[in-house]
Structures are given as structure tokens and as C-alpha cells.
């Protein structure tokens, strides 16, 4: 019961949606299901949020190492949630000057906007920017000419790195017209539009097949690990 019913639900939904794709009348069902999912995912925040709070509260009450940071997380979370849900500091807009509730929740000047602009945004962008450092350390460590395959990796990366800078274009001016293809930027364009294209296409086709067969396994109930335990 605990596994069979959901399995049937998954199978029926999936096959109906496959067929519906080919019938004009039901074509949109897939999109509607996706829309419903978003509602569900939004409400599921209750599960995630309550878990986050419970975990951090537990850390604080157990006085586990680093409980101070747990308290910071909890306060940051609750403050953001409250000012956002109550639209603190949001001013009415021109269209509805008497109803502040109609104004966007992230309006410039509101509390939530302040949190977004001066905390969320710099934190997010800087975390992303750390990649500049990591990409360098990864290249230093991993790009070593150990075998022919890694030489191919290395050489391509080298050409493209050069080709994507000002230097790559400079070579085009120096080289005679007949040898222009030897400049780094021409080679980069060639690699991108031939080798990279072929490689990415093979990967993409493979993935499409992988997605199709994995989906089918889910629908047929062959793969049911997502359903958890319980009697059949």
C-alpha cells in the first residue's frame, strides 16, 4: 500500500503526460503540472524552514560548538522572513497610492531591499567570484601532461585561454592573411565551433537518451528508490 499506490500514481501521471503531448486538447497539461509543482514547492518551504529552525535551535539549546553561529543564522532567517512577509518599509506606488500592500515586496528603500542589496547580493556575488581563485588552483593542479588525453585537454585549454584575450586578436594583425587561421582567436573559434560542438552534441544526445530511459524506469516502477521503505 505504501509503495504501490504512489508507484501507480507516478506511472499514470507520466504516461498520461507523454500521450497528452501529442493531442492538441491536452498539450498544456505538462505545463499545468509544472505550475502546480511550483505551488507545492513554495508550500514545502514550510518543511525546509521548520527543519532549518529546529536544527539551529537544537544546536543552541545543546550548546554545541559553534552554537553562536547557529543563533546568527536563526536571527538572520527570522528577521528576513518577518520584514519580507510584513513588507516593512514598503511605500505605496504611484498606481495604488493608498495601499502599501500592493507594492512590490522588494521595493527600493524597504527593509527587505536593504537586506538584499547590502547583504544577500554581496555575499552571493562574492561566493560566486571565489571561482576565479578556484579555477586557477584547479588548473595548476590538474592540467598536467600525464598522457595523450591530458595533453589534448591542456593544449585546447591553452589555445582557448589565449584566444579569449586581447593577445589572441593581436596575432591576427601580425600574421600574413594566408596564415591568419593560426592566430589564437581564429583557432579558438574553430575549436569551439567544430570540436567543442561535436563533443557537446554527443554528450547532449547521450543525456537525452539517459533522461528518456531513466524517466521510463521511474514510470515503469523499475527504479523506485525515491519512494523510500515500506510494504509493497
Amino acid at each position, binding site marked *: 500500500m505504501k509503495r504501490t499506490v504512489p508507484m501507480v500514481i507516478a506511472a499514470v501521471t507520466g504516461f498520461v503526460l507523454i500521450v497528452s503531448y501529442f493531442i492538441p486538447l491536452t498539450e498544456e497539461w505538462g505545463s499545468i503540472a509544472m505550475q502546480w509543482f511550483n505551488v507545492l514547492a513554495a508550500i514545502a518551504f514550510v518543511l525546509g524552514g521548520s527543519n532549518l529552525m529546529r536544527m539551529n535551535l537544537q544546536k543552541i539549546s545543546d550548546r554545541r560548538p559553534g552554537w553562536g553561529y547557529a543563533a546568527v543564522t536563526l536571527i538572520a532567517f527570522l528577521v528576513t522572513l518577518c520584514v519580507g512577509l510584513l513588507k516593512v518599509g514598503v511605500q505605496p506606488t504611484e498606481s495604488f497610492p493608498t495601499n502599501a500592500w500592493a507594492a512590490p515586496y522588494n521595493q527600493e528603500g524597504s527593509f527587505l531591499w536593504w537586506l538584499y542589496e547590502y547583504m544577500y547580493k554581496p555575499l552571493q556575488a562574492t561566493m560566486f567570484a571565489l571561482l576565479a581563485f578556484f579555477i586557477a588552483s584547479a588548473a595548476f593542479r590538474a592540467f598536467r601532461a600525464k598522457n595523450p588525453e591530458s595533453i589534448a585537454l591542456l593544449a585546447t585549454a591553452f589555445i582557448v585561454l*589565449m584566444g579569449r584575450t586581447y593577445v589572441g586578436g593581436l596575432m591576427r594583425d601580425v600574421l600574413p592573411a594566408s596564415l591568419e587561421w593560426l592566430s589564437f582567436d581564429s583557432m579558438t573559434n574553430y575549436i569551439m565551433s567544430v570540436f567543442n560542438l561535436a563533443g557537446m552534441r554527443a554528450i547532449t544526445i547521450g543525456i537525452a537518451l539517459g533522461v528518456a530511459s531513466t524517466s521510463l524506469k521511474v514510470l515503469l516502477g523499475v527504479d523506485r528508490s525515491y519512494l523510500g521503505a515500506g510494504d509493497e
Partner: protein
Amino acid sequence: MYEFLKNLDRRWIFLLILLAVAIPILGEWQFPEKPSPMVQSVFDAIENLPAGSDIWMAYDYDPGSQGELHPMALAFTRQCAFKRHKMYFMTLWPQGPPMIQKNIELLIKEFPDLEYGVDYVNLGYRPGYEGPIKLAVIDLRKTIAADVDGKSLDDLPMTRDFKNIQEVDLIVNVSAGYPGTKEWVLYASTSYNIPTVAGCTGVQAPYLYPYVPQQLDGLLGAIKGAAEYEFLLLEAYPSLRENPKAQEALRRMGPQLLAHLVLIGLIVAGNVIYFVGRSRGDV
């Protein structure tokens, strides 16, 4: 020296990269660009449309990828404004609206003669990943009934008779990931043959190349693509030369050069260590 490099602390590499990026920024280095054919084709796709065409500006990025994508988004907006195209801004990213807002502010400031609701409209954020695309290509009002301020689309001159995205002449997508270019290609460009150009982050570009030129008319890859684009825009509209904000990407190419050279140096150093180590029997 070999011993030092072999057990090199990553932090030295990090310091090098930091300097390689910081010095050109502080020194304000800038280089001229050579537009590649791909960038040219994106530029032409917008430039060759008759003035007043409808352009769907799908700006799917957030502050995290602003460094890579914002300059090209602004360049697209400027070009469309110069060509007097009608712009419909929309984002599928929850943190996209502030990005669109910056484009709108640009229009207000640099093109005061364009009017909101007549020449451009901000349709804001639509949740639902690719869902809104699929609905909006069939019937816009199923997913968007009002603009970002809650004004009904029927009250805005440019959207009053607008049925769906199939009516636009071009989709311009700036995307930092999912949902983004791929979804626009799959559900709009491919299904309904709507011409589409895109600008994306460096990491996405290689994997979007297979869609060019059949499903995508052109692709701008990250800041280099944006720099070349800005260069073309400066050539076509020399009045922009007075505007330092229109050369954001060109300025970003300074750090690129030095950082790329540092990276190449690091790869070479890594290999030297590897070969020296191998000859000494360390590896």
C-alpha cells in the same frame, strides 16, 4: 625553488590571481576589440530589423552573475533603444527584477524620449521555470496579466493587442543558467520558429554552441562577447563614446588579459614541476 613549487600553498596562487585582477582595475587598462563573426551576427540580428520591431527581452540572471552579464544586457537595451524597437522585459529568475530595473533606469536616463508602456514595458518576474515560456508563447495573458506595478496589460498601449510571444520579431535572452537560453530555445525558438539571440555566461557558451545557427541566430559568450559587442555598438553609435557606462565590458577585458596570462603561467609551472618531478623519480 622546486621544493617550494611542489608543495606550493594554494594561497600563493590565490594572491597572484587577486593581483592580476586588481592591478588592471586600479590602472584602468583598456584595449580595442576585434569582433568575431558570431558577435557580429548577434549585432546584425538586432540592427537589421526595421525600426520599431517587437523585441522580447528575456533577462534571466541575478546579482551573482551580474559581473559577466550585466554589460551585455545593457548593450542590448541601448541598441534596441537606438533602433527604436519595442522592448518587453521579463525574467524567470526570482532575483532578476532588480536587473531589469537597472535597464529601465538606463532607458529613463539615456533615452528620455522613450515612453513606458509605449516603447518598453517591464513584465517583471514569472515563477515556474520554463512554465511561463510555454504558456506565454501560446497566450501571454495566461501567465502575465499585468506589468510589474500591477497595471493591467490591457491598459498599456504596447501590450493591449499583444497576444503571445509568437508575435515578436526577436527574442533577446541574457541567461546565467536554468531557466535560461536552453529553455527559450526549446520551448519558444524551436517550437515556434521565433528568431532568438542569446548572451550567456562563459560556462554555458560551449554547451549552447550546438544550437547555433539553426535554433539560435547568435550567441555572446560572457564578458569578451560583451566587450566585442560594446565595440560594435560604439562604432555604430559614436555618441556612446562619451558615456563611460557603455564601455563596462571593454574595461573588464584588462583584468582578463593579465589573469589569463597568469593562469597560463600557472599551467606551465605545474607541468614543469611535473616533469622535473618525474625525472627525479618523485611521481
